[in-house]
Each structure stands twice: as C-alpha cells, then as structure tokens.
C-alpha cells in the first residue's frame, strides 16, 4: 500500500489503464477467443478427418507398388501425404490430444488406424504432422497446417499484446502532457510569499485550469494580506513616533530629578529603538533601494572603528578592501546588529573579513556564552528571545538576527551561527563578490 502511495498521478493512471487492458485481454482470451478457437478447431478437425479418410481409403485400394505414387498424387500444397511400407512412428504429442479427439469424433474409423498427431518441431510454425496405420500395417504420413488457435506461442501473445503496449506508451505520453500544468503549479506554490505574486498561466484541462485560477486568486489574497500586515505594522510604527516625540519634549520640561529623567529618557529611547528595529525588519524584506557596488571591508572596518572609539573592545582583521554588490543600508544595519550583539552578550568581538573564492566572508567571533545548540535555528525567527522574560535586559524586540538574516538573504548570501569549540559564538556572513 505504501508502495502504491509513492506512485505519482501518471503512474496511478497508467496502472488503472493497465488493469483495464489486462481485464479486457483476459476477457477476450477466455470468452471471445475461446469461442472462436472452438469453431476454428472444429473446422480444422473436420478438414483433417475428411482428407485422411479419403486418402487412406484410396491408398488401401491401391497395390503396394503404386501406393507411394498415389500418395504423392493425392498431396496438395496444403495437405501432403507420404506412404511408407513400414517404419517407426513417433507417438502423438499430448498437446494435440484435443484435436485427435475431435478428428476421431468425425471419422471413427481412424481410431482403428491408430492416428497419431504431433507438431512439426522445426520449420513452418503451427504445422501438424501425423500418421495413420493402414490395414496391412504400412504407414501413411501426412503434413498439414493447423490454425493458430491450436498453439498459444510467444509470438501470438506478442501479437495480441502489441496494441496494448502501443496504447500504454501513448497513454503515458498523454498523461504526462495533461498533468504537466500541475508540476508548474507545484513549483509556483513553493514560491508563494517569497516575492510579489506571479500569476501561473492557465493551461491544461478544464479541471486543471480551474485549479490554476483558484491558485492565482489565493496567491493574490495571500499577497494582499501580507501587504496589509506590513502596512499596518509600518503605520503603527509611524503613528507612535509623534506621541513619543511629544513625550520626549514634555519630559524635558517637567523639571523632574535627574535620576527619573534619565530613566524615562532611557525608556523612550528603548521604545524608539523597538520601532526602528520593527521598521527595519519589515522594510528589509521589500526594500525599494537598489543594490550598489560597495566596499564591505571598509564598511565593516568603519563600524568596528566607531565601536572602538566609544571605548568598546572590537578589533578588525583581514582584508582592507573587498567589493561586493549589495544594498548598503540594509547590509550596514545587518553588520552593525552582529557587532552590537557580540558586544552586548560577550563584551568583545573580533571581526575578520576574508575572501573565499567568489564569496566575501565576514566573521564575528566572540568569547561569550554562545547559543545552546538546540536554539541556533530559533534565534533567526522574529520575536524570539533567548533570555527569559525575567532576566530580560536586551533592548529591542528579538528582531536583531532576523533583520540580519533577511538582509543577507536579500543579497543572495548566507548567515551561519555556530558555537566555537573553546567557547564563544562565531557568526559567519557569506555574500557573493562583485564580478570583475
């Protein structure tokens, strides 16, 4: 059953066709063919019986000197006789027992003549040879054709199966052609949500066209709902900015003690930071900005220098110049996020820019606690935070790495996180280099 489930639609249809053809073949063989075969056999038997009776009577009445000549005279191209005074006779073959019975039904006198039949081993297919014993124990041999119905040989099976085989090949080709639009549909389904919807061309049978129409409509609805969601997230972000700006300015006029002021300013700046990361996350997916040639080594080094100037432990190693094609804004934000992450969780970071064939590599190594192996994939999911709610001390909404992931993917690159053997996390960004 599992094997059957593994079959594709064309295979199943073909199996059904084969089953139908098989049943048809069996029915033909067993019913129709059998009936016609009986008719043919009876004709054959009667013909053989008549010839044999006439020939044996004629030869019986001839002197033994003339018998060989008379036997030759009685021969026709389709029924040859040969008389011998004596000789060894091959015993009849079991396969032709049925025919023998039928011949004897027609001509009972041949029973006494000890009729023996067998198939001619070589030469013309389906020919029957046989012999009868005359009253003086001389032997009359004969050779005649028999209808194909007597023998169900391989050639005959092939002849009967040939139309079925042609039918199967034709059916296979037609099934594949009919089902091809489904393959297109499957490929299109895999891409839904990964970009603006591309309508699948309507083709194939009416049912398949119906399916494609439904799919295209569904694609539009999904895209619309994703766009709506993006727009509402951006709108929320946008609308919150004005009240936060008012709070910020009002706070400056309250004359609160400096500690409360500092705390509230911190709260407002965290809210601002959250809005920025939310916006960055939403916008990185569908950035309107074009990709440009840029020097990723200089970009990385500039970020490291800026962090180092702020008194933080960031060092830069590797290439001084490496050009790639990328969207500068989102890439800069991605690299900055990785730098900030490492500095936040580990307190120090070593950034190395290198080139591996046609790929630019930017590695961020730290000596921090790393990420539990079973959470390495989770941290790329939006709104996932590794620190529990109680120990939460990281600003933002758990969008830092998802933003990086989106930005790097947008440039056709990859983001790898792995724990170093001697502790610490290594984050590796790989982006294709500029050609030339």
């Amino acid at each position, binding site marked *: 059953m599992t094997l059957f489930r593994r079959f594709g639609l064309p295979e199943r249809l073909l199996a059904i066709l084969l089953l139908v053809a098989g049943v048809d073949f069996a029915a033909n063989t067993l019913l129709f063919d059998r009936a016609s075969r009986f008719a043919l056999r009876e004709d054959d038997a009667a013909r053989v019986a008549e010839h044999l009776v006439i020939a044996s009577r004629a030869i019986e009445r001839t002197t033994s000197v003339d018998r060989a000549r008379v036997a030759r005279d009685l021969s026709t191209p389709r029924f040859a006789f040969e008389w011998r005074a004596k000789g060894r006779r091959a015993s009849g073959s079991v396969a032709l027992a049925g025919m023998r019975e039928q011949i004897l039904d027609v001509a009972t006198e041949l029973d006494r003549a000890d009729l023996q039949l067998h198939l001619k081993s070589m030469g013309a297919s389906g020919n029957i040879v046989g012999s009868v014993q005359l009253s003086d124990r001389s032997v009359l041999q004969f050779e005649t054709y028999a209808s194909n119905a007597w023998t169900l040989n391989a050639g005959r099976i092939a002849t009967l199966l040939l139309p079925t085989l042609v039918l199967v090949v034709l059916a296979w080709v037609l099934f594949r052609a009919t089902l091809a639009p489904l393959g297109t549909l499957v490929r299109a389904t895999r891409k839904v949500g990964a970009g603006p919807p591309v309508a699948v061309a309507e083709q194939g049978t009416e049912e398949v066209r119906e399916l494609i129409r439904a799919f295209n409509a569904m694609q539009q609805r999904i895209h619309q709902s994703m766009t709506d969601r993006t727009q509402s997230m951006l709108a929320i972000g946008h609308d919150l900015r004005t009240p936060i700006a*008012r709070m910020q300015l009002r706070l400056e006029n309250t004359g609160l003690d400096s500690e409360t002021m500092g705390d509230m300013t911190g709260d407002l700046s965290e809210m*601002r930071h959250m809005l920025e990361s939310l916006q960055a996350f939403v916008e990185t997916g569908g950035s309107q900005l074009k990709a440009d040639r840029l020097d990723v080594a200089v970009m990385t080094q500039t970020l490291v220098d800026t962090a180092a*100037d702020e008194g933080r432990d960031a060092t830069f190693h590797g290439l001084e110049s490496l050009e790639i094609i990328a969207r500068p804004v989102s890439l800069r934000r991605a690299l900055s996020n990785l730098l900030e992450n490492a500095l936040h969780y580990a307190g120090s970071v070593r950034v190395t820019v290198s080139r591996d064939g046609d790929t630019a590599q930017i590695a961020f190594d730290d000596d921090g606690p790393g990420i539990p192996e079973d959470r390495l994939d989770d941290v790329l999911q939006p709104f996932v935070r590794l620190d529990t709610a109680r120990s939460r001390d990281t600003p933002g909404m758990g969008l830092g790495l998802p933003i990086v992931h989106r930005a790097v993917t947008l440039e056709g690159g990859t983001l790898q996180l792995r724990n170093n053997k001697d502790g610490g996390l290594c984050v590796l960004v790989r982006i294709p280099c500029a050609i030339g």
Partner: protein
Amino acid sequence: MEHMQSPSIVLVEDDGPLRTLTARALRENGYTVRTAATGAEMWVALEGEPADLVVLDIMLPGTSGIELFRRLRRQSDVPIIFVSARGSEEDRVLGLELGADDYVAKPFSTRELVARIGAVLRRGNSNGSDSAGDSGQRSGDIHFEGWTVSMARRELHSPSGAMVDLTGAEFDLLATFMGQPQRVLGRERLIELSRTRLGDSSDRSVDVLVSRLRRKLSAAGGNAPIVTVRGVGYMFRAEVNRA
C-alpha cells in the same frame, strides 16, 4: 551675513502639540521661531521675512512633502533640516538627494535637534567664508583622482564605483581637505575645522582620523592623496574638480 539677533527658524509640523513643544524648546535655546501647520502656511511665513533655516516634517498633509520640498529648493537656498516620521533610510536618502542639509528622525530630543540646527547653521556660515561656493559645496559632486564625493548624500565612491563608508568625522575631514587642495593645513587648524563641522567636541586625535582616511583612500590600491608635512600638518595633493 550678520547675526546680531538670534537665528530665525521656520518650523513646519502638522501635529499641533508637537509643533508647540518643539517651538518652545527651540525658543528656549535662543532661536526665533515661526511655526506653520501646512505648506501654505510655510509660504506665508517665508514671504513675511527671510529665515535662516527651515525645519520641515516631510509627511505633511495636503501638498505632498516631496513636492513642497522641491518647490522650496527651487525658490530658495535656505538650509533645510527635514524631520521624517517614518525614519526610514529611503526617506533619509531621498531627503538628502532633494537637497536637504540634514535629517532628524522622530522621535528626537531637544538636544539632538538643537545640535543639528547649530551644525547646519555653522556649516552655512563657514561655507560663506570659505573659498568653496556654498551651493556647489552643498549638493554637487566633487571628483579627485577618479574618486567621487557626493556632498548631498555624504558619500564617497572609489574609482571603481564602489561606495566606501566614512564616519561623520572622516567625511568632514575629507571635505576640509578638498576645500583647500594643495595647501598645507596645520594640525591645529584641522582640529578646529573638524570640531566646528562636527558641532561636537571630539577628543579623537586628528592623526588617527587622517590615518584612517588615508587607509581607506589607498585600500583599493594606489597611494592616498594626503601627504604629511613634517612638523606642520598635512596636505591634500590631488587636484579637485567640482561638477
């Protein structure tokens, strides 16, 4: 341009309470402020008497912010700081392309806004006194030895066309060098210029900034066009073309 009285600012902001709060904060910092809720009100405010600077919220209702921006740029050279409620990079790049002098994302603190206004006003003043033309300095591209510097976007592109990131301080230093090519600049003067332009005192030594800038200008091969004049300072030896 003389500045006997306090600089005059036109503030365009559609949110009433925020407009009041911002105007008050700016007045407390010594600026004369006229406010406008719409583009039409802005034109009225500008016709009455000239302003030293316009603070413009780009997502105004009515006339699209961008259209308003273009018209303002066409009709006047007044420095513009635009406030983006969306705070997106697209907005920032668009604003600077349209000829804004600086950009502030909402929400902002008074300190941040005042620092930006101060820096833009100082830049405008020093441009007036420098030999470099002010409009060219603000928005045009400057070329040297195949490199391109976009003053509007504050970007540096290498001879191969790749964007080369600079920190704000590094860009200001490069701008200073390009403003005085083939002239020896003393270290003290560079420190002073950098500080003015940054609007923020920096204890980073000019020598570190110069060496970083040199490294970036020579990273893709070739020699950096900044030479050390022993005991005096530095000289930008490349020929500078303004396009």
